[in-house]
């Protein structure tokens, strides 16, 4: 289909070296796809000129949806007509990114026919990214995708495609079923995912334990992180085995415990579970000897995001502990109260984390009807600027402001 590839002396340099080369990937695709061929050309030009050649914005989509497609046009269509349109489609991945090859091959087939043949496996939110197609292909692609059981992911001011660590599917530490929860939330919020109506985006990420293998604390408006309330399970014999095998239990574990709540006398490993922070370190180092407790669930944190506008945020605790059982009704109710408030009071392009900072965590809790808990703060306030709400009136009764 495609004839000779363009000359790309700079990009060719990126075919050298042991790591898989994206240039080789584009070249493979370019053999068949004129869009990928022009992608090679336009990218080589960017490398020469040190500037991108994509225009700002672009608003395209499929009917009935407000998100899922990122419109993209190049600024030199005369030179690269096959990437004049180069829209991206976000396809909602299955929870945990598990696939069977037949499903993947079907996606490839659609994309061979209707797109550039280039993908991201996956985007950094978690979607399958189909990279580069034109407006007229969007509806057919959507139709064919739904026919094989896939749907679009989020974009715009909506729920973004949730993602999760592989959790109970393969990890012994999963304190709740992350994949089940991720799937459940995704299905439950289809409308919010496809039809943007929020002040800004809202991301869910599910990690099975405090190791947080989907980095939820850094990049989810709601981070649901598995943990436990009871005691770490210890197999003392197995601890001894690690020690015999050369693990320096004192140096490598006890001394690195952030809670300083462990003690090892060469025979017994003691843990003061009342101060253990569930950081996972000891468990990580001796997976055969230590395991999370049995009273498992999750803590929910809220509000992380990238720096713009007010500076980056990590998520902060909003529910210190909750059992994670379908249909997760309590969490759904909470989420809905949060959305209601945020939609009513949030400013345009104000993420929930910024919103909370603006209105104050204490006020926010009040408005979403959640009791304050000491787990929600790193420490109590340091400044004496307390908005006392109670006071006595002249007539002696205690009044409330």
């Amino acid at each position, binding site marked *: 289909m495609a004839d000779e590839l363009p000359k790309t002396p700079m990009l060719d340099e990126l075919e050298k070296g042991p790591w898989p080369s994206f240039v080789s990937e584009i070249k493979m695709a370019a053999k068949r796809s004129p869009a990928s061929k022009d992608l090679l050309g336009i990218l080589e030009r960017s490398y020469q000129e040190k500037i991108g050649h994509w*225009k*700002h*914005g*672009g*608003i*395209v*989509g499929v*009917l*009935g*949806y*407000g*998100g899922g497609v*990122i*419109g993209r*046009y190049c600024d030199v269509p005369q030179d690269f007509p096959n990437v004049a*349109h180069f829209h991206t489609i976000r396809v909602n991945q299955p929870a945990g990114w598990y696939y069977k090859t037949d499903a993947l091959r079907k996606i490839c087939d659609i994309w061979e026919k209707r797109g550039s043949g280039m993908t991201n496996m996956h985007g950094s939110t978690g979607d399958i990214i189909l990279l580069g197609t034109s407006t007229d292909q969007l509806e057919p692609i959507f139709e064919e995708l739904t026919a094989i059981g896939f749907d679009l992911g989020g*974009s*715009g*001011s909506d729920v973004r495609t949730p993602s999760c660590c592989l959790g109970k599917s393969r990890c012994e530490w999963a304190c709740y079923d992350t994949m089940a929860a991720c799937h459940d939330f995704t299905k439950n919020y289809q*409308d919010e995912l496809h*039809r*943007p*109506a*929020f*002040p*800004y*985006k809202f991301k869910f990420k599910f990690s099975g334990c405090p190791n947080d293998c989907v980095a939820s604390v850094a990049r989810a408006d709601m981070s649901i992180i598995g943990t436990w309330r009871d005691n770490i399970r210890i197999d003392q014999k197995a601890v001894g085995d690690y020690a015999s095998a050369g693990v320096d239990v004192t140096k490598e574990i006890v001394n690195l415990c952030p809670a300083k709540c462990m003690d090892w006398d060469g025979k017994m490993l003691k843990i003061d579970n009342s101060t253990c922070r569930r950081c996972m370190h000891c468990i990580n180092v001796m997976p055969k000897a230590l395991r999370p407790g049995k009273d498992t669930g999750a803590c929910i944190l809220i509000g992380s995001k990238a720096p713009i506008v007010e500076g980056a945020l990590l998520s902060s605790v909003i529910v210190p502990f909750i059992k994670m059982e379908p249909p997760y009704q309590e969490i759904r109710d909470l989420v809905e109260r949060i959305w209601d408030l945020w*939609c*009513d009071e949030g400013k*345009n*392009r104000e993420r929930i984390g910024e919103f909370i900072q603006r209105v104050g965590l204490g006020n926010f809790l009040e408005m979403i009807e959640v009791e304050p808990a000491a787990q929600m703060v790193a420490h109590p306030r340091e400044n004496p600027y307390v908005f006392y709400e109670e006071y006595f009136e002249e007539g002696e009764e205690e009044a409330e402001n």
Partner: protein
Amino acid sequence: MPNFEWNDLNISVDEDGFMDQPEDWNEQIALALASTESVDVLTDNHWKVVNYLREYYKEFGIAPMIRKLCKQTGFSLKEIYDMFPSGPAKGACKVAGLPKPTGCV
């Protein structure tokens, strides 16, 4: 810039079909643009949305947040999508001759 023709109208639009000269907007053009967004007739309800969008934009210089649009017009999000299948941002704003929504995609 592509040109878009409809009946005897000839409007210059961008790649996404948004008007290049929003100041030229009129009801005829609205109808024309609607046709590109799978809207054949502009009913009273359509106009309610379009007018609200235009007035809000005139007053505040921005498009309203969608939740506000729903609240103020009394339509649910679903109803808006039924009227404007490509949605409030791409569909309704285009028909209303507003600048193309940017930012958060």
